[in-house]
């Protein structure tokens, strides 16, 4: 039972860490929207998140589709999981 709890906790922690990393990426995209004067539309499961600077017209329209949003989350999760697994397997006690 404790093994099961540990496994569920690890998965939840991993998902929360990936969500926080994605929030950081979203923050960067908001910053880029402002600096590069973009009209950005992010699609998340049928909902749209639109961002554009108020005072200047946008030069480029960028649409991130569902596959892009999901792919980004999966890539972040896989990178974290891969790095953790690699470190866990190659860990040696500090001498």
């Amino acid at each position, binding site marked *: 039972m404790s093994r099961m709890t540990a496994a569920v906790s690890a998965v939840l922690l991993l998902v929360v860490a990936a969500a926080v990393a994605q929030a950081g990426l979203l923050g960067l995209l908001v910053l880029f929207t402002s600096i590069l004067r973009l009209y950005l539309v992010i699609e998340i499961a049928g909902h749209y998140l639109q961002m554009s600077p108020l005072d200047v017209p946008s030069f480029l329209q960028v649409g*991130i589709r569902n596959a892009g949003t999901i792919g980004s989350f999966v890539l*972040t999760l896989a990178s974290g*999981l891969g790095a953790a697994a690699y470190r866990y397997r190659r*860990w040696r006690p500090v001498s």
Partner: protein
Amino acid sequence: MKGLLRLYPRSWRKRYGAELEDLVDRTPGGVGVALDLVIGAAVAYRDVIGGNRILAAAGACLHGMSVAVLVQAIGFVTLILIAQRSENPTDLRLGPFDFATVTRSGYLLQGPELRSPVTVLPLIIQGWIPEAALLLVLTLALAAVLAAPRLLRGLR
């Protein structure tokens, strides 16, 4: 100055805290001492995290995610940089999956005076500068994140 001692891990403070507090009391304060304490805290955390298999894996996980976020941000800016040169919409797709589309805004294409290369070209050239600067900053950040574990390992 003593407040910086709180940056150290609790287990470390329990063992060496009083000793270090005494040392800080006897040392004249300054930026150098403060920097030493901050670097010392980073080294103490490195030792605590590196000595535990689970914590080491968790640290590597966060590091991997940071790298992934920066790589995606670099990819995003590169896509914008490539797409703004093209008059047609630029699609980022892999087989049936359409990840992103970049199109030039309509206002640049409306009216003969706006459509002329004389008007559009300076806008495109100006558009390169912030993107190239962003790309440079992101690449430097990625290099710093990638080098951080090695740099931390080298600290004593």
